[in-house]
């Protein structure tokens, strides 16, 4: 099964967020699921302060990674992405604030799904290094 990469404005097919609030720039899929998402941190990113991506930007990147995952399955059904909201963030540990120029890669693992609610684990690290950035559990609600 071939891999598909969504990038640039192709991301807009998967998530409803638009600039300056877009916090993923690459989505890699295989076997009809999202394998990982990436974000290269630009200096004009609205969550960058003093050359570092702050904690809330990391959490938003993870939330949009989850949005892309559910958005990809609606995309496969030929539909527009629906609005999603963070319901809960749990056990979210921050290990290092990434810097402008770093590329984040996030891997998600769905641990539960029911009635428009998705529960998942996320791990974020800096591409090309073993440096962990954050790990957390998140609950996402989709607008019905």
């Amino acid at each position, binding site marked *: 099964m071939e891999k598909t990469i969504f990038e640039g404005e192709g991301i807009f097919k998967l998530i409803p967020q*638009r600039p*300056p*609030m877009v916090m993923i720039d690459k989505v890699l899929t295989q076997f009809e699921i999202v394998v990982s998402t990436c974000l290269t941190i630009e200096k004009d990113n*609205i969550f960058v302060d003093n050359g570092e991506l702050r*904690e809330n930007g990391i959490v938003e990147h993870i939330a949009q990674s989850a949005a892309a995952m559910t958005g990809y399955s609606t995309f496969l059904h030929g539909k527009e992405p629906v609005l999603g909201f963070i319901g809960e*963030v749990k056990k979210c540990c921050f290990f290092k604030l990434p810097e402008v120029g770093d590329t984040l890669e996030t891997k998600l693992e769905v641990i539960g799904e029911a009635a428009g609610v998705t529960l998942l684990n996320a791990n974020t690290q800096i591409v090309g290094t073993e440096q962990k950035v954050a790990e957390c559990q998140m609950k996402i609600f989709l607008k019905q």
Partner: protein
Amino acid sequence: MLSDFYIIRNEHIGQDCAEFDVLLNPDCKVYKGHFPGEPVSPGVCSIQMVKECAEKVAGARLCFVQIKQCRFQQLLSPATTPELKIEISLKQEEDNLNAEAKVMYNEVICVSLKGTLKKEA
């Protein structure tokens, strides 16, 4: 970093707890993209407000070590929930600060957060 997401209109800062009355700014550029034609305050911006209020209480720049739990119980938006109250308590534990905070609109809890922060060098 978004510097115009909200303004603080009133603050009561005690030894290790505090209350802030804040007003959300509908003109913040974040709403251009979250979401077009349907402004919803990003949950992570509530986390930022809580952290900045904690910084005022601690008198220092802070960084989250961990968000143990943050629940978003009600959607926030400058159109429907413009005036918010933030209650926060901080407890020193070794080198870190344990924070518990609530963001409320009209006495209703919209966001509750428990987390650990450290002072930045």
